[in-house]
């Protein structure tokens, strides 16, 4: 690992000021950053430890939403009774990711900005535009079974690895950011992530030294929430396909639906076409199939990952059918 200097921030604004230094990076849980530093993929010269900032609480918001502090560990968020009862899709997504040990350490903010697990990104001998802009992409034409079929471009086909962010996308979470000069802004999660385009190394709209301070959950949308993850192993594995769905159905008709996909796209993917194909339609298999077709209409396989397109359709159908079941009262 390259050497670096270390400081522990005790106030959020101070952390942002410290991160303005050349080569500086925030460190929180460290479960992804230290892994990448050991491999020489991340090479910060200065670490600003933000893990002890007073940003760990989960608080009620007026109107029925929740504010999740960016330093809240994934475990705490998943186990919070308000999250479990009002946003079960978020708990289900969190507990489907990583291991118990990693979830105890990984923070909410860190989960959002974790890097892809594309094996070529991890292999410093391989070409990777994300790791070294302009170097090319060894995954295109390489072994790309785990790669993206949505949102990919000619420069990068790496998937976004987070489960949590997929649930947050379906929940239309907002991300609060603190920047230099005490600037505070909120970004909807749909606007937080950037498609790779020609700059796959720029993954979010975060500005230099800007820090995630919290995630804001709006009041839960109506309907049943469900997260389904399909992967090569039963546990402790990244998604080949995942679906976060919130479906409200009454009298055999779907009133509203939110659908997001993981494991298949370069960013946590909101399937707006699927949502449009569900709204006002009868809660039937034909409707789910039509929604799944709509969601994957623009999907492009790279060879090894062609199977993900049909796998995503089937996972969507099954998840939507389950989510559209009437919510039991009482």
């Amino acid at each position, binding site marked *: 690992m390259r050497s670096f200097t270390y400081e522990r921030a005790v106030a959020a604004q*101070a952390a942002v000021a*410290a991160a303005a*230094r050349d080569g500086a990076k925030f460190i929180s849980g460290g479960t992804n950053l230290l892994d990448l530093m050991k491999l020489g993929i991340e090479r910060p010269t200065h670490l600003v430890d933000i893990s002890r900032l007073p940003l760990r609480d989960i608080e009620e918001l007026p109107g029925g939403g929740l504010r999740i502090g960016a330093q809240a560990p994934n475990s705490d968020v998943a186990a919070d009774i308000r999250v479990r009862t009002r946003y079960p899709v978020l708990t289900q997504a969190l507990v*489907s990711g990583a291991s118990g040990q990693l979830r105890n350490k990984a923070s909410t903010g860190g989960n959002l900005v974790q890097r892809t697990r594309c094996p070529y990104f991890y292999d410093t001998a391989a070409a990777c535009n994300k790791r070294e802009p302009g170097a090319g992409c060894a995954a295109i034409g390489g072994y790309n079974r785990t790669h993206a079929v949505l949102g990919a471009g000619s420069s990068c086909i790496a998937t976004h690895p987070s489960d949590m962010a997929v649930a947050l996308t379906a929940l239309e979470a907002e991300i609060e950011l603190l920047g230099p000069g005490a600037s505070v802004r909120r970004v909807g999660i749909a606007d937080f992530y950037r498609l790779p385009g020609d700059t796959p190394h720029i993954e979010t709209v975060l500005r230099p030294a800007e820090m995630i301070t919290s995630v804001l959950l709006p009041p839960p949308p109506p309907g049943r929430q469900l997260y389904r993850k399909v992967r090569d192993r039963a546990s402790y594995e990244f998604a080949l396909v995942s679906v976060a769905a919130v479906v409200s159905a009454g009298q055999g008709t779907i009133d509203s639906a939110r659908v997001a996909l993981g494991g298949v796209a370069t960013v946590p993917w909101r399937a707006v076409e699927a949502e449009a194909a569900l709204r006002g339609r009868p809660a039937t298999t034909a409707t789910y199939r039509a929604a799944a077709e709509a969601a994957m209409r623009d999907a492009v396989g790279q060879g090894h990952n062609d199977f993900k397109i049909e796998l995503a359709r089937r996972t969507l159908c099954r998840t939507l059918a389950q989510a559209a079941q009437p919510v039991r009262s009482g």
Partner: protein
Amino acid sequence: MSDSVTRAVGRSRDEGDRLTTVTLHVNHQERRLAVDPRTSLLDALREQLRLGGTKKGCDHGQCGACTVLVNGRRVNSCLTLAVMHEGDDVVTIEGLGDPGDLHPLQAAFVECDGFQCGYCTPGQIVSAVGMLGEVAAGWPSHATADVADPRIALTDEEIRERMSGNLCRCAAYPNIVAAIRGAAAGGPG
């Protein structure tokens, strides 16, 4: 520039060449160390404190052999820096029990033959201690049918799911599950 607003604790002066001091409470003993900021908690425990029970497997958070309890929670000690743990309580396998006075989970692993080569065992046992605490606190898992239900039934499926961060290349899993099930049923784990 930021010195005035951030505490100097743990701040190293030059480009990583200087050692930083950190105080850990390891197995209920205060230990003061001088470490390079790059030192993982795992390396600090093994190489500086000579607590070799905690094992280095993959060194990338994938195998769980390095699991320790930090402030009561199980974490991968390979994926965290020693300097980040100023003042923290760390419990390693050595802190759980002694040969003459085994922790119930240690005794259960012996009783159930929950290992073959034994390399993953300290991580398995420390992880199981943390895991049973999580169950007692009502934390849900991927194996929990209704995540809103705070009552967790410790089925074998729950044990397997919750222990998935600890790999055993000898595949002693059936006996590991039996040991944890037995210790959990036998009283405080």
